[in-house]
């Protein structure tokens, strides 16, 4: 067993040991039966014909139903653990990770950046949002019993709570080319004071949100996405996490993946009331810059007045900045307002 260093590890190990016991039981059981029969019923004379047995329905049913029930139990346990692992936690520390042949890069919310290392606070829920600049990688921490593929063109997430301080292996688990086995790093879990000290000492740049605001302006996103719905694009202020009504009648949740898609492929899901006039930024921004813009969009609150330039690329539902967080509920509230805004374009 590797070290147990996350909140998933204990249950994982119990489950694993249970299956080891089950496998041992069946392997020894079947082998022992075979060997005993082999010796007991060994051939005594060349031509002998043993008594023939056709089969036995009760036995067949027994060894169909019992393995089935065992299998269903294993399924249920596995599904439960998986459900915990893949349900986003509340109040997690959110870190953005990019995989690239052949290194891992991480961006902390306060602006610290790391390569092939990841510092984490003990006992705090951590959520990673990940993507790849090139091929498929997989972010694997054996001591945490977690692994998630890092896929170009989409965001994947994983989360865990580190439960032990120390340094643990970080491996790339999806074959990614020549230096695949070199794409490894360290996970450093520290207690509160050490972690704070690291945060202070770590090379620090602008926070992702600040950097995102810079890009938001330099890419001229703010020309259209203003704080009020007066721009040619919908306002993005306070919209993160809300449901957005689309031109095609469906609804989409404004999350990281949606913003990313709207920056790189703006025509895919256009917001109701806002014709598709936005150009693609594919090739002009790196995955890390996209992540920063997203952090910025997440950070801009509903208060319309101060925001310099609102939202970015992907224009989520048009909701009046004036209709603040309360607009969350759904598109129902949002929609009439958005329509009221009408002519977004020239």
């Amino acid at each position, binding site marked *: 067993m590797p070290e147990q260093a996350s909140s998933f590890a204990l249950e994982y190990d119990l489950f694993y040991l249970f299956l080891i016991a089950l496998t041992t039981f069946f392997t020894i059981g079947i082998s022992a039966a075979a060997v005993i029969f082999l010796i007991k019923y060994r051939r005594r004379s060349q031509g002998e014909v043993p008594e023939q047995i056709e089969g036995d329905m009760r036995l067949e049913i027994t060894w169909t139903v019992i393995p089935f029930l065992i299998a269903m139990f294993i399924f249920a346990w596995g599904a*439960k653990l998986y459900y915990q692992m893949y*349900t986003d936690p509340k109040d997690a520390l959110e870190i953005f990770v990019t995989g690239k042949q052949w290194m891992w890069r991480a961006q902390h919310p306060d602006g610290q950046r790391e390569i092939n290392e990841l510092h984490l606070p003990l006992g705090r829920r951590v959520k990673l949002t990940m993507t790849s600049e090139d091929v498929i990688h997989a972010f694997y921490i054996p001591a945490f019993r977690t692994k998630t593929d890092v896929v170009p063109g989409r965001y994947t997430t994983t989360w865990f709570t580190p439960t032990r301080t120390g340094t643990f292996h970080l491996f790339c688990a999806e074959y990614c080319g020549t230096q695949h086995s070199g794409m490894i790093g360290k996970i450093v879990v520290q207690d509160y004071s050490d972690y704070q000290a690291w945060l202070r000492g770590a090379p620090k740049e602008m926070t992702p949100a600040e950097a995102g605001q810079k890009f938001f302006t330099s890419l001229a996103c703010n020309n259209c996405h203003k704080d009020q719905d007066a721009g040619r694009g919908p306002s993005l202020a306070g919209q993160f996490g809300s449901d957005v009504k689309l031109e095609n009648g469906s609804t989409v949740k404004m999350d990281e993946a949606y913003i990313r898609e709207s920056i790189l492929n703006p025509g895919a899901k256009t917001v109701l009331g806002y014709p598709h006039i936005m150009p693609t930024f594919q090739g002009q921004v790196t995955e890390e810059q996209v992540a920063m813009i997203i952090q910025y969009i997440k950070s801009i609150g509903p208060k319309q007045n101060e925001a310099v330039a609102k939202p970015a690329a992907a224009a989520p539902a048009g909701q009046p900045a004036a209709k603040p967080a309360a607009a969350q509920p759904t598109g129902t509230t949002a929609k009439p307002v958005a329509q009221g805004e009408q002519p977004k374009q020239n």
Partner: protein
Amino acid sequence: MATEVMETTESRVNYLNNGTTVKSWLLTLDHKRIGLLYLFSISFFFAIGGIYATLIRLELITPQGDLLTPEMYNRVFTMHGVIMIFFFLIPSIPAVLGNFLLPLMLGAKDVAFPKLNLLSWYIFIIGGCLMLYTMLSGGIDTGWTFYPPYSSIYSNSQVTIAGVSIFITGFSSILTGLNFMVTIHTMRAPGLTWFRLPLFVWAHYATSLIQVLGTPVIAITVLALAFERTLKIGIFDPKLGGDPVLFQHMFWFYSHPAVYIMILPSMGVISELIANMTRKRIFGYNFVAFSSLAIAVFGFLVWGHHMFTTSQSMYTGMVFSLISYAVAIPSAIKTFNWTATIYKGSVSFDTPMIYALAFLGLFTIGGMTGLFLAALGLDVHLHDTYFVVAHFHYVMVGSAVIGYLGGIHYWWPKITGRMYSEFLGRISAVIIFIGFNLTFLPQFVLGQLGMPRRYHAYVPEFQVLHILSSAGASILAVGFTLPVIYLAWSIKYGEKVGPNPWMASGLEWQTSSPPPTENFTYQPVVTHEPYEFENVEEIKQARQAELQRA
């Protein structure tokens, strides 16, 4: 079992001496000769795959990547996988033993389409030559799974040619499957009803079904990959507007059922070995027969269990996990029925039985460890580690190859008319069993400890287990070499045998060894259930007659 009087007089002319020119082999339409052509071809590929395996195990003795460069190592493990899977395991039992035995077991003169059968072999050879060309021109470094966008855009190796090779070879598999299905439907001897068929035939029917339905999908998939690579059509690479996970769905839609193409025929062989080496009919014949079909059908519905960590939705994962457990049940049923067959049998200790026993133990481990990987929460940790490597080697080598070798030993006297050294046969079966376990048991532990697969260099704490594994591999190499030597020796010097040296049941044992070109000198008629050992006196007399002649 069958009927008619046994043909004890050895035919003067048999399929082996009926024409000895190279042309008589290369243009033969005889299913038995085509089976042998396949035997030589896939043995050649097995040897190449084995050399690659040797290089992998040598490299991994030390944690540093010192023997091979990373580029070479990546090519070596990829070529090992590609050659072993597409050019050895998939054709192995069906193309060699299936070709040789199916018409014999059905009491037929040949398969339904003999020319198509020869064509299949030529297609296989063309695909194989392209793969050899790929190998000599640098090989490929994508892993046998060819995941894009690495394979389609980033890799600097012969991916396109390898893809074309696999595309072509697939047709060989499709045509063989088609041929077998038609043969089983239309060429059965009078009286040979479906439930009188040997289980080997049932297993091949199920396998053929997968070959015919599944192989076109991998053909399309590698073609799409080749298009993206050469023409930059965006299918899988997100930078071109494609979806890399789409490839994984398409790839595993074939490649998971392909595992059953490898294991089902082996299960068929094991049913024959256990029944005939214990002289007892298979316990629960219907259950064993239908579980083959159940595996073939359910096998198509579980591909998503290769993608639990690939960002597919959580609920999709749950459905695939559930169905994966459904496919485990038929395998469990087979295992219990085989074990029950031995009960109160007349158990022989001859080489084929040793292989059958090895299969029972190794397949149980291979199958049970599949339960770990189908369990969602466990797979998150174990996916893409050595645990997976160990698991599929237990299934593909510990079960499929062991079954193949057991079958080769069991039908060797029928194929050649000669017997190998029983002593060496048993010894090498035991060596393979020990070597195999020593190679792959430590890999389960490695995977659980977190060692990812396809690593050229690794962290030092894994070294002890890797050394154990490499030591096991060297024993395994001895075990695989021995049969080549003593089987080759037996062709010339082995003791001649009569039609039925094992006193087995089954139509193939009713004709002379080796069989005449037309298989039977009379039309067999079947009046019994399969695995009928009642007429032992007759068999005894036949045995007597044989001994007298010798």
